[in-house]
């Protein structure tokens, strides 16, 4: 009787462990089931033997992706043995030995060009080289599987691009067509300047996007600048996306470039964002050892980048002696280096008695160094604004925009408030409004609809500014812009403007409704007395109160929809100036609080301090408070910065960085709104929004 070939026999046959009998072979020739089994094993065997060799990462060297083992003496991204032998790992010693015996420059692998995860995949066929095209195969997610074609959008980074650069354009890199197997095929163009690329795949109408579960698809581009720049730009791009991957990438950079202080300084800065409180002290101690070994190794003239990194590394690790040493060296030997210019700007600010003196000092600094660091232009712009000097503001804002082009709308709005600059401001705003909808400004992970929603508050503010400017010059279109501003974002200032116009037309009832909408935002500081002054003495206070309550409820409902209400861990602690530890819950004191993150070394945060103090005072009547927090090491610098400005504020230190990490807090100034029980309601709000959102929490917290 003829029998099926057992799976075991089939496996033995195809794994080389035994042969099929003649009877079994004959059976398989006419038994579909067995033939399929046999075919499958043969197929697998053929496929595994056809697997190509795995290669070292293909971003080493230039132009030839397979040149992963550069010859001895090749210049470029070769890792060198660690001169400072303290703390040298076994791996480093082995690699150092390999170099010494002339084997080769050592291959130090790092995260490869990863463009896949999860259910979809964007695969690059062949090397990804700057200035060339590359074929890609996209295996789609379910959401895009039925499309005939999909669009690949990309954000490319060039060597030297900044972190958090919102002006980096996002562009269509290519269109892929679906083949009969359901995959999408096509080509992408890689710009000449690219060292790193980030991709998303979306439907042609931009309403469905494969963001690879938020990680996007990325590639390190072979480029003439070397792998260092690819990795650095990867880190720069990861900072607001994944701290953990950023740290891993930065570690790879330190493995590759162990003598470079920039690599270590960046690593410690990043590690602080991800390690636990328990790890932080030992981590800092380890980095201090590294700092000292670098201090001995880098020599007296290491270049501006290295000197700036040594200064900052010393500051981060709390070594004040080395911090001062490297600051002096940096400013003395490399006075035009961005890090030096930042510090020189701070020094000018400390030395100046008033804004005129400050601007004189900054002018001299500008003549010396030019647009080396944005903080120079920013400090001068704010000083000119405080002086309400249109000429100085125009000059300095143009300089400022060289280093911060993304501030163009803000600058244009300031123009509107300065005599003689209104027309220029209006033109700049109109141009900016048009550019705001450019698809190249749409982030990779946002659909067109979500992008429009995210831009609504900014666009509304611009429409309002244009509306006001047109009204002053009696030009047409003012009402249209105002209506658009209210439609986009029901802001207090837009409603206030509308109320004023309705009063001008004699529509008091309409004006009452509009003014109550404006007054519903506590930041507007519109009181009943204001309402009487605006609407007239005949205002019925009961009607006003009713309108205000209704408007307040609408506003709360709107804002509450976006509330997080996330409980924070109960054991979070902050330290005061004397090092005493306080539980966050105690600091909250049962009331609604705005956590205001700042840094004594951050220009924008220092500029915001007076407004933060004013907010703190305004919150007191409702039982709220501002808790000023810095994640910088505890040092006299913070207290000095507050005292110099005559501010009645006390700062707390997040020495363990637990709170900072819990809030995913980065950059200063930044504001978060908490209720008295330690629930996070709103994360990362602007200073302007903080008060209104705190009021919403105050009103809502009893009912929650």
């Amino acid at each position, binding site marked *: 009787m003829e029998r099926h070939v057992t799976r*075991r026999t089939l*496996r*033995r046959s*195809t*794994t*080389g*462990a035994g042969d099929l009998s003649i009877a079994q072979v004959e059976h398989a020739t006419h038994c579909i089931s067995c033939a399929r089994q046999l075919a*499958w*094993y043969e*197929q*697998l*065997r*053929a*496929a*595994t*033997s*056809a*697997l*190509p*060799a*795995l*290669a*070292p*990462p*293909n971003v080493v060297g230039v132009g030839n*992706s*397979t040149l*992963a*083992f550069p*010859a*001895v003496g090749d210049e470029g991204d070769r890792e060198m043995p660690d001169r400072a032998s303290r703390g040298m790992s076994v*791996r480093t010693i*082995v*690699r150092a*030995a*390999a170099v010494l*015996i*002339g*084997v*080769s420059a*050592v*291959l*130090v*692998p*790092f995260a*490869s*060009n*990863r*463009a*896949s*995860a999860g259910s979809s*995949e964007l*695969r*690059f*066929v*062949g090397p*990804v080289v700057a200035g060339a095209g590359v074929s890609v195969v996209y295996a789609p997610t379910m959401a895009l599987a039925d499309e005939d074609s999909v669009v690949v959008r990309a954000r490319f980074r060039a060597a030297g691009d900044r972190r958090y650069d919102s002006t980096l354009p996002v562009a269509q890199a290519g269109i892929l067509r679906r083949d009969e197997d359901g995959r999408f095929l096509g080509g992408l163009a890689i710009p000449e300047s690219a060292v790193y690329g980030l991709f998303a795949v979306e439907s042609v109408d931009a309403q469905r996007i494969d963001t690879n579960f938020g990680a996007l698809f990325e*590639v*390190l581009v072979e480029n003439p600048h070397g792998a260092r720049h690819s990795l650095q730009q990867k880190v720069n791009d990861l900072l607001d996306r994944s701290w953990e991957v950023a740290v891993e990438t930065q570690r790879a950079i330190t493995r590759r470039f162990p003598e470079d202080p920039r690599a270590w300084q960046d690593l410690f800065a990043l590690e602080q964002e991800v390690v636990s409180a328990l790890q932080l002290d030992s981590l800092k101690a380890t980095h201090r050892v590294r700092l000292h070994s670098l201090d001995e190794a880098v020599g007296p003239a290491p270049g501006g980048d290295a000197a700036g990194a040594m200064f900052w590394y010393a500051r981060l690790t709390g070594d004040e002696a080395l911090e001062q040493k490297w600051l002096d060296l940096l400013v003395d030997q490399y006075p035009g280096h961005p890090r030096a210019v930042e510090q020189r700007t701070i020094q000018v600010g400390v030395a100046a008695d008033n804004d005129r003196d400050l601007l004189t000092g900054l002018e001299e600094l500008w003549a010396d160094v030019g647009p080396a660091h944005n903080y120079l232009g920013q400090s001068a712009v704010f000083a000119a604004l405080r002086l309400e000097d249109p000429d100085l503001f125009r000059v300095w804002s143009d300089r400022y925009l060289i280093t911060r082009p993304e501030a163009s709308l803000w600058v244009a709005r300031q123009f509107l408030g300065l005599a003689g600059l209104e027309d220029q401001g209006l033109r700049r705003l109109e141009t900016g409004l048009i550019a705001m909808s450019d698809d190249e400004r749409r982030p990779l992970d946002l659909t067109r609809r979500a992008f429009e929603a995210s831009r609504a508050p900014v666009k509304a503010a611009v429409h309002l500014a244009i509306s006001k400017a047109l009204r002053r010059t009696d030009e047409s279109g003012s009402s249209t812009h105002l209506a658009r501003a209210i439609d986009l974002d029901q802001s207090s200032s837009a409603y206030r403007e509308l109320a004023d116009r309705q009063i001008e037309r004699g529509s008091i009832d309409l004006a009452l409704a509009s003014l109550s909408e404006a007054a519903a935002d506590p930041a507007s500081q519109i009181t009943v007395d204001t309402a009487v002054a605006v609407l007239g003495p005949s205002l019925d206070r009961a009607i006003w109160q009713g309108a205000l309550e209704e408007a307040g409820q609408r506003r709360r409902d709107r804002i509450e929809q976006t509330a997080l209400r996330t409980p924070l861990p109960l054991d979070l602690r902050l330290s005061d100036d004397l090092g005493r530890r306080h539980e966050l819950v105690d600091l909250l004191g049962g009331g609604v609080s705005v956590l205001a993150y700042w840094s004594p070394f951050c220009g924008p945060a220092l500029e915001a301090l007076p407004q933060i103090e004013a907010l703190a005072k305004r919150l007191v009547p409702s039982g709220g408070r501002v808790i000023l927090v810095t994640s910088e090491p505890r040092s006299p610098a913070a207290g000095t910065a507050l005292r110099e400005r005559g501010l009645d504020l006390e700062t707390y230190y997040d020495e363990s960085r637990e709170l900072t990490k819990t809030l995913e807090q980065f950059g200063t100034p930044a504001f978060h709104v908490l209720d008295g029980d330690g629930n996070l309601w709103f994360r990362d709000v602007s200073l302007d929004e903080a008060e209104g959102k705190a009021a919403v929490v105050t009103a809502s917290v009893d009912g929650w």
Partner: protein
Amino acid sequence: MKSGRQLEEPPSLHDLYRDHAPTLFSIALRLLGSQDDAADVVHDVFLRLHEKPPGDGVDDLGRWLRGAAVRRCWMQLRTAGRRREVREVSANDYASPPSWEHGVDLLHLERGIARLPTKLRVVLVLHHVEGYTHAEIGELLDISTAASEKRLSRAVESLRTYLEGP
């Protein structure tokens, strides 16, 4: 009188490294799943070659180097214990990116191999990818030929489950 072969200039360590290191790296990466560890193994092998070259009995240096690399990998895998992170393989791990061959997406296959338990993966890679016989595998890993066959059989079965999906 010296033979012609003996009169030839012996290849320098640099030449040997250039010629063989990519192959060793590929094997080591498939076995270990870590680029760092694979690079270390390659360098270990060449350090050993430098310090203690093989005797005259070895006439296929490439094979000797591959064997040394496999043994180093195996030692490392055995001492590393059971915990191992599965590294996601991508198209960029190849000098020549893989495509569909024999009706199989090779990248998917590679990922399936990477997910196999260590003992099974090592045997499958050595037998199917590197072409070692079961007897040779037994010698390299210090296991019996039958054990090698059994492990390969289980590896193929696991791989099939992975490739065909749930």
